[in-house]
């Protein structure tokens, strides 16, 4: 189900309404019922898989807590992780299961339950005994479609909290965050998608400068698309006073690839750091081993996105290692270089066929026909007015992202009437300048498929 659809808006509205009118103790259970209903609406098969993952890790959590024998604990951990990991690999790559519907958010919830079970193994916190509450952690519907990958001890305090009173300020900020996410998705990302579709639609004509143009634009598109979706999840959760972790922190202001991954898809990076990199020895085992660990993590990160993204992950790992030794003394130059590397590597997302992606990257260096790009920029699917909207909207997004705290602080002190005007203006701007509706087929978020 699409996060920016009318039906989703209605579901969120009803959920928020019901959440605040039910008795305190019923709040988590109400959310669980709605989440299950949401999942059932996607089909019975996905529900079975998420229930399986939830039940196996729930039982494993209790068993791990009660066992003292280290070997038995390791076996329980290994079996649970392998079982859930295998289901993820089999379903995502459709090995033996061609006709099964891949459950929505399987990559996200599988990583969540693995983090839970690993934390219980490490005695970070107690296992959840209440099955319904545990189900809510695995099935809370907003983050199922796009993440982030929430840690049990981060989200559950507010997810299970029952003593909540309606807070108009939280509702306003939640709503504003949702609208900002929708703005990023519909006004910026979907508009760029039109250009990307034209360029990828004719790989013989659109190479070289066109390919680079697509890569640079895609950097903005995927950011606005993915972070826009996360904004909707965080904003809606804010309305319910549930604290969902931030998944982005100005990634394109990074000065090297290492910093980029501290700012991009933070929940996934942290997950790999805590559950793969550190258990492999992290940076404690000498340079060579550290570098190998980094490359393993990035290959696995690529694999998480799909087998065709392994090279993308590996290249990120290599550039991360190179960035440790090669850098300029100028911040701005480092930022531009990092942005260019990241953008060029998005080629593997733009052209999912690895060979074709490599050809397109090569064409940037061999067929850089910038004059053809300038001459044809008007025939790539966007009118001049649309380009202007795209440029203004993109600048607005990055200014807000960069000065979010200051702007929010300023808004905070404004009268409710001003806040209302701001909200209504945002809705009207999205309605007019958003790219959606008949004839446009990119309403799903890019990261829905992972």
């Amino acid at each position, binding site marked *: 189900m699409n996060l920016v659809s009318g039906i989703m808006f209605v579901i969120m509205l009803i959920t928020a309404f019901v959440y605040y009118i039910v008795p305190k103790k019923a709040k988590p259970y109400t959310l669980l019922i709605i989440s299950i209903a949401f999942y059932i609406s996607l089909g019975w098969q996905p529900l079975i898989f998420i229930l399986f993952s939830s039940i196996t890790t729930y039982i494993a959590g209790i068993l791990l807590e009660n066992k003292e024998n280290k070997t038995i604990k390791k076996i329980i951990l290994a079996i649970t992780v392998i079982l859930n990991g295998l289901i993820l690999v089999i379903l995502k790559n459709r090995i033996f299961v061609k006709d099964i519907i891949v459950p929505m958010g399987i990559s996200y919830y599988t990583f969540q339950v693995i983090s839970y079970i690993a934390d219980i193994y490490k005695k970070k916190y107690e296992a959840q005994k209440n099955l319904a509450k545990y189900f809510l952690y695995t099935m809370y519907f907003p983050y199922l479609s796009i993440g982030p990958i929430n840690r049990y001890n981060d989200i559950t305090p507010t997810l299970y909290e029952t003593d909540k009173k309606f807070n108009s300020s939280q509702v306003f900020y939640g709503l504003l965050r949702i609208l900002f996410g929708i703005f990023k998705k519909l006004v910026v990302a979907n508009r760029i998608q039109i250009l990307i579709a034209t360029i990828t639609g004719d790989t013989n004509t659109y190479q070289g400068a066109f390919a680079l143009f697509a890569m640079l634009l895609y950097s903005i598109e995927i950011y606005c698309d993915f972070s826009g979706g996360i904004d909707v999840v965080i904003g809606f959760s804010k309305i319910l006073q549930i604290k969902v972790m931030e998944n982005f922190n100005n990634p394109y202001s990074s000065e090297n690839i290492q910093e980029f991954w501290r700012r991009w898809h933070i929940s996934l990076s942290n997950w790999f750091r805590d559950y793969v990199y550190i258990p492999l020895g992290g940076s404690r085992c000498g340079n060579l081993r550290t570098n190998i660990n980094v490359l393993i993590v990035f290959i696995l990160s690529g694999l998480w996105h799909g087998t065709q993204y392994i090279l993308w992950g590996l290249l990120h790992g290599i550039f991360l290692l190179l960035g440790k030794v090669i850098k300029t003394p100028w911040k701005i130059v480092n930022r531009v270089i990092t942005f260019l590397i990241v953008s060029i590597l998005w080629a593997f997302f733009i052209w999912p066929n690895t060979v074709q992606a490599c050809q397109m990257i090569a064409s940037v260096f061999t067929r850089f026909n910038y004059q053809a790009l300038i001459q044809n920029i008007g025939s790539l699917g966007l009118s001049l007015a649309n380009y202007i909207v795209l440029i203004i909207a993109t600048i607005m997004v990055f200014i807000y992202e960069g000065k979010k705290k200051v702007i929010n602080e300023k808004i905070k002190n404004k009268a409710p009437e001003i806040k209302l005007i701001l909200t209504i203006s945002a809705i009207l701007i999205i309605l007019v300048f*958003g790219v959606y509706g008949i004839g446009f087929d990119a309403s799903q978020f890019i990261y829905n498929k992972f």
Partner: protein
Amino acid sequence: MKTIKRIINVIVILVIAILIFYLLNKLLMPKYMTDLVEGSMISQYYDEEKNHEVIFIGDCEVYANFSPMVLYQEKGITSYVRGSSQQMIWQSYYLLKETLKYEIPKIVVFNVNSMRYSEPVSEAYNRLTLDKMKWSKEKYDMIKASMLDEETMTSYIFPILRYHDRFDKLTKEDIEYLFDKKKNTYQGFLINKEIKPLENKPVVKKLANYQFADIDYEYLEKIKDLCEENNIKLLLIKAPSVYPHWYDEYDAQIEKFAEENHINFVNFLDKVGEIGIDYSQDTYDRGLHLNLTGATKLSKYFATYLKENYELTDYRENKEIDDIYQKKLEQYMKEIM
């Protein structure tokens, strides 16, 4: 006091927001005044005086081929064409239902060409019929019956959801006709004076199935029942458009239905010679529609047919109505000259 002031402020802001939203919807909706004028035809009916004894329903074969002004001029018949592009039979039914809320004619003329279609053809055609129709239960039902999978009811209720991408295509026309509209038909008849002769008769392809779909019969029955309930005589016609080809198998099915239900059916394709239609002169798109001269010939013939077969009033003898029609005729004559 402060709270009351705040409540008033909020109400004012909401009212202004609703007003802006309403204006944006109106601004972005196509006006259909100079381009795709077919989209404005349905709404022009609402401004007319409702005293028609004959109402036409159907697709472009009615609004391009039958001129109510000629019917009046020839025999004093008052009529209106509630036609629209690619009007589906379910749309004809709901349009008729809506029309009957305003007036009860003596005769309803239904062009049967749409019987060949069992499902909506395109969203664009739906829009041409539905966009400018007044909101009513009939419009709601018509939308439900007409929508393609990718369409939504909300986009009909709030046109901004469909037409927001027109923000970079707005022209002077969108401002000029924001609240205003101009008449571009004469009683629903769209004048076209161009001549594009029919050079070669189109190749007739054999079909796998000639049987009209159940849904078409269902709505034809509904139209018939609606007419019976209101004591209206239903007249089925097939306009003399050369293509899309009207198969004998289609004709036989309509003949049978008409016979079983004691309804008159006139296939004007069989009367082309009698009417005097010359496809080298009387069509503006190689036989698909008649042009002004063709429509005038057909309308003259049809006026005589109606007068001979039905009891219709000659409104030329009614001074009050004749005055109105004479003014219309004056304008019409100026335009066709």
